[in-house]
């Protein structure tokens, strides 16, 4: 019996900051505290740190430093990507039905399983009058490529599909998506003036520690990353913008970040995030092996010990760290509270945990019935997860599920 253990299995929500990251940030709070826009030595010191970070991130993503924009959060990166592309084709005028170019009215495509930072931005644009297609997914959470191909029109300006899903871990075939998006027939027939091909954006927030971030191999034009998902500090994000991709600013002020993300650069956070990304890449191979082994142990243990439950997401094309289960005839928040009382942290797609009483749109899109979505639990592992912790979960979870099912026996 391992009573009193504290087991954090919610790394997909956020990760602890690497000690090396804290160390790297330290001088930038009150020693090298300058404004990176200032001309004096303090300013130049800060500017150097920001530009070194930009160069390092660019190296990891296999792009040019000027293609990297530092932003506020993952959410702001997503917003800038989507609203920025739409804005560059005459945003609000277009939304109100006035056509631009040679008759083109921008059309947008995304998937039904995006993070709310993407999904809600598209829903907002839809309300403004834009045409948006929300692509369906199969039962594994994989975007239907045939439907994507059919959805693209001469006036499509933007396609946004996440790299891997944060709730179930399914990895999308971005490379194939890129080929479809970027192989539109004769650009001359396209109805938009400065989009010879649609722009492809991906939210890669869930992937930095485990998947290849080479933007050229992925074939994306825009890619979002968020610092706190890979051992960096909260409050800073990255947006990769391929050279010549039409993106307009969505907030206004100074000339910072090529004018696309105005506001004084958060130097300590940018330095810390870059260090965290470097470490994630350095440890990637060993993390994948270790985390995937523990994940497999958790999956087989849960499926073996607990009746009436199943794994969600793709059986093989999935992130090494995310496991998501549905436990029939139990409610997710009740499971989380019981687990929390025993020191285990996880998360749920149940309506009761969402704050707005809506069950997970991801699981619903995968065709899982609402009453089963209420019983969904995600355990997301991290580089610090141990085998002992998985053993503890496998000891506690079957008892929790069985207790709660006893409470509703016969219903």
């Amino acid at each position, binding site marked *: 019996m391992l009573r009193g253990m504290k087991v954090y299995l919610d790394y997909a929500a956020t990760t602890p900051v690497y000690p090396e990251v804290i160390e790297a940030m330290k001088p930038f709070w009150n020693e090298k505290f300058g404004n990176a826009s200032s001309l004096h030595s303090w300013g130049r010191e800060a500017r150097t740190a920001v530009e070194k970070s930009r160069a390092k991130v660019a190296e990891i993503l296999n792009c040019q430093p000027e293609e990297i924009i530092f932003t506020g959060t993952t959410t702001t990166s997503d917003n800038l990507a989507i609203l920025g592309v739409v804005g560059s084709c005459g945003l609000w005028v277009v939304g109100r039905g006035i056509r631009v170019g040679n008759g083109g009215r921008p059309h947008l495509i995304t998937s039904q399983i995006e993070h709310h930072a993407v999904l809600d931005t598209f829903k907002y644009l839809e309300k403004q009058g834009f045409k948006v297609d929300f692509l369906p997914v199969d039962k594994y959470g994989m975007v239907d490529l045939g439907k994507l191909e059919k959805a693209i029109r001469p006036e499509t300006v933007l396609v946004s599909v996440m790299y891997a899903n944060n709730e179930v871990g399914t990895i999308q075939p971005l490379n194939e998506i890129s080929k479809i998006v970027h192989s539109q027939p004769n650009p001359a027939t396209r109805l938009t003036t400065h989009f010879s091909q649609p722009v492809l954006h991906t939210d890669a927030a869930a992937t930095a520690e485990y998947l290849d971030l080479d933007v050229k191999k992925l074939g994306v034009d825009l890619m979002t990353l968020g610092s706190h998902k890979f051992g960096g500090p909260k409050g800073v994000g990255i947006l990769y913008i391929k050279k010549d991709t039409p993106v307009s600013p969505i907030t206004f002020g100074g000339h910072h970040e090529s004018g696309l993300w105005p506001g004084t650069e958060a130097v300590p956070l940018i330095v810390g995030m870059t260090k965290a990304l470097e470490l994630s890449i350095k440890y990637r191979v060993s993390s994948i092996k270790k985390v995937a082994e523990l994940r497999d142990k958790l999956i087989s243990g849960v499926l073996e010990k607990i009746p009436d439950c199943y794994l969600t997401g793709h059986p093989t094309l999935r992130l090494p760290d995310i496991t998501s289960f549905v436990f029939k*005839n*139990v*409610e*997710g*928040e*009740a499971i*989380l*509270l*019981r687990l*929390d*009382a025993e020191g285990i*942290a996880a998360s749920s797609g*149940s*309506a*009761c*945990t969402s*704050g*707005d*009483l809506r*069950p997970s749109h991801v699981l619903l899109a995968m065709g899982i*019935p*609402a*009453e089963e979505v*209420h019983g969904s639990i995600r355990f997301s592992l991290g580089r610090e997860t141990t085998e002992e912790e998985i053993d503890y979960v496998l000891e506690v979870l079957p008892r929790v599920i069985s207790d709660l099912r*006893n*409470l*509703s*026996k*016969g*219903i």
Partner: protein
Amino acid sequence: MTGISSLYSEKVMDHFLHPRNMGELPDANGVATVGNKICGDVMRLSLKVSKSKTKDQRSKRENGEEIIEDAKFQTLGCGAAIATSSIATEMIKGKPLKDALKLTNQAIADALGGLPPVKYHCSVLAVEAVRKAIKDYKNRLK
């Protein structure tokens, strides 16, 4: 306590972690199921109602008054749904029917030391279960 349980009062957590009166009454004479699985919360309440045989001076009970002798619940739902079900059974046990019918969701929430606003509907569900089970008892008498 930190984490998600800090959303709830100690009393809610106590009733959630140690539910009172859970299960089914084999000799129930009033039963109700409310809520539905698609919304995520289902509560089933069973009551054993009997008529008091002697006049009880202390509680001013009339002879023959209908009393909820026992109450048990089964709930499929979130922490608040389980806690409201549990405390509702405590609040109606031993009470005359006419008093149990006066139970309000506010009284349940108050007895639990408050509920987060998004969980008020759970206390409404518990009241609905009590009223429906009493109605079932009365229908059976017809």
